[in-house]
């Protein structure tokens, strides 16, 4: 018997992807892929879909398995060596609390979404790429949980991320972003997540957390970052290929895709505000300021990307200029917001020390000393007098981004922006023209937003008082509030043999 010749990479890729597709005999394509055309995207030839990585399933399992083995060896070593004591100080852990409660559930959401696109797209190349990314995202959710669970043994606020994600007021911001995409069609989902999130904005999500981990002695998270990095670069490449593929398939696709880019750029930018706040306020050793990050990753790199896409007719996302106008105010306003609602958060807040205030002055020369330093100093003095400030009322949220309506006019930063519209006789409120426009394009959908303060008053969140609601969120008495008075801080001082003054400095 003659032995078959070994296949080369290209033959193998074709055999392991394209050739896996079925020809349908007793159902029509429209019956099998009912979600493929309602969004208006026209695909004439799915075989034009190119996977730049030509990754086949057998190779995929092999690579991922190797990465898992390495990661779990590091996690084991971390636990055995009490490596949680190696971080800069206990304030750093609060960045991980945000990551675990706000980002890890998004990985799981992406897993669900790509499982959906893998089923919904009629082209086999897109199905296989979606399937791999779906498994990647599930792996990321799991490896993040396993990595950060090391810290859960020693610190508060890390014990119930998925329960919190579905209920907590500020976690409705990332949740609603993803659910907006998940409840749309497959093309909108993949534009929202693969392109706007993974390609345009991911550097501003991953870089601050992973570099922040490295700067602050968190080797477990750094290792998770390494383990996910090759997946992320595959996802970014897919994001760009998807956009180009759709644009090349039919000219009618352009305005639809541009609108999705506009929408998810803005929603993603609003979502990233919390990351910016983490960069400027929560990392004891800072990597770069939000302003520097936005300039480098969006104003420079993002601009180059959109210059490249100009040949397809794509323009910079609408309202991008506003993100630039806001960059010297955004993180200060958000940190002050979380500080004032610190009694209802599952992470700690605090006033930066003097050297950190100086760093902020240097990074924000036009705004920090003028507007924000005096506020922080005032609140610090109040705390010293035993009058730690907490805002007693529930916040008014933007109907679209679900962030409290704290944003101000950059030209007049003590004036809040209020926008509203009437739909079906009811009034809806927005933090910006962009959020208002997103609502007005799809009011049937956006008017269904599950806004946590309103849900509390409807009686759906465990009761009418703040303790009832926090119990419903599964918060413990140690999860939130002022860092100085936290159990995390007391334990840290005990473990490190520090007096409170040494620690806070």
């Amino acid at each position, binding site marked *: 018997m003659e032995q078959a010749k070994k296949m080369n990479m290209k033959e193998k890729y074709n055999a392991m992807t394209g050739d896996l597709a079925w020809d349908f005999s007793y159902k029509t394509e429209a019956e099998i892929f*009912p*979600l493929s055309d*309602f*969004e*208006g995207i026209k695909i004439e030839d799915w075989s034009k879909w190119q996977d730049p990585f030509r990754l086949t399933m057998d190779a995929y399992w092999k690579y991922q398995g190797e990465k898992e083995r390495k990661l779990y060896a590091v996690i084991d070593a971390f636990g055995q060596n009490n490596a949680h004591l190696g971080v800069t100080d206990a304030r750093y852990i609060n960045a991980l609390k945000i990551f675990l409660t706000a980002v890890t559930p998004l990985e799981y959401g992406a897993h669900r979404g790509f499982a959906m696109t893998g089923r919904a797209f009629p082209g086999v190349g897109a199905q296989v790429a979606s399937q791999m990314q779906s498994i990647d995202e599930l792996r990321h959710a799991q490896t993040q949980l396993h990595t950060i669970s090391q810290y859960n043994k020693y610190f508060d606020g890390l014990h119930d991320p998925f329960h919190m994600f579905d209920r907590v007021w500020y976690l409705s911001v990332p949740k609603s972003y993803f659910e907006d995409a998940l409840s749309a*069609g497959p093309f909108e989902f993949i534009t929202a997540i693969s392109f706007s999130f993974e390609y345009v904005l991911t550097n501003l999500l991953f870089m601050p957390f992973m570099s922040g981990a490295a700067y602050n002695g968190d080797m477990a998270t750094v290792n998770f970052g390494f383990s996910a990095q090759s997946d992320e670069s595959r996802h970014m490449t897919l994001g760009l290929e998807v956009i180009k593929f759709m644009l090349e398939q039919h000219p009618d696709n352009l305005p639809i895709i541009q609108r999705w880019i506009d929408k998810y750029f803005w929603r993603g930018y609003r979502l990233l505000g919390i990351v910016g706040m983490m960069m400027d306020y929560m990392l004891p050793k800072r990597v770069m300021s939000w302003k520097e990050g936005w300039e480098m990753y969006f104003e420079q790199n993002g601009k180059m990307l959109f210059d490249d896409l100009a040949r397809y007719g794509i323009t910079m996302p609408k309202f991008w200029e506003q993100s630039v106008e806001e960059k010297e105010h955004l993180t200060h*306003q958000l940190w*002050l*917001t979380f500080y*004032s609602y610190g009694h209802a958060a599952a992470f700690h807040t605090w006033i930066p020390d003097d050297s950190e205030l100086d760093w902020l002055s240097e990074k924000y020369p036009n705004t920090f000393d003028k*507007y924000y330093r*005096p*506020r922080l100093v*005032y609140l610090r003095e109040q705390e010293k007098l035993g009058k730690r*400030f907490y*805002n*007693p*009322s*529930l*916040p*008014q*949220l933007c109907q679209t981004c679900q962030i*409290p*309506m*704290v944003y*101000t006019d950059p030209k007049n*930063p*003590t*004036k*809040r922006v*209020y926008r*509203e519209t009437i739909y*079906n006789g*009811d*009034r*809806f*409120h927005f933090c910006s023209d962009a959020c208002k426009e997103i609502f*007005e*394009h*799809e*009011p*049937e*959908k956006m*008017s*269904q*937003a*599950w*806004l946590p*303060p*309103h849900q509390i*008053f*409807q*009686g759906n969140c465990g009761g009418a008082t703040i303790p009832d609601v926090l119990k419903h969120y599964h918060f413990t008495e140690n999860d939130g509030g002022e860092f100085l008075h936290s159990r995390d801080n007391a334990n840290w001082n005990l473990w490190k043999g520090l007096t409170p003054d040494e620690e806070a400095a």
Partner: protein
Amino acid sequence: MAVKAAYENYSGPNRDAVENFHGNQLVYLGWDEHMMFPCAGVFPLPPQMPFGAIIKEVVPSAFSLHPDFASIDWGKVEWLLDGKSFNPTLDKSLEDNGVNHKSLIRMITPGLNGINNSGF
């Protein structure tokens, strides 16, 4: 514009319809130039409640922690209702004052503009 959906005549519930609030309506209340309260607060209030009760009960529960609060001259406070200047009649109900479900009331206190006049 309308949402593009997988089937025709897509619609869903208005999750914050006034009927869902057990006889109350939502009212938002903000204090301009006092960014210590970073955003307006939201309150479930009976539509029959007199506007004066907002001043007596709701406003203090929201804003009394601010050092400017004790100095407010209530005769000089200016009000905005849904973006328009507004003179409330204190013994009339919210409803009769035109304060509807999800109305936004903004309070302006001339001469009192936050700590050291900073807007905070």
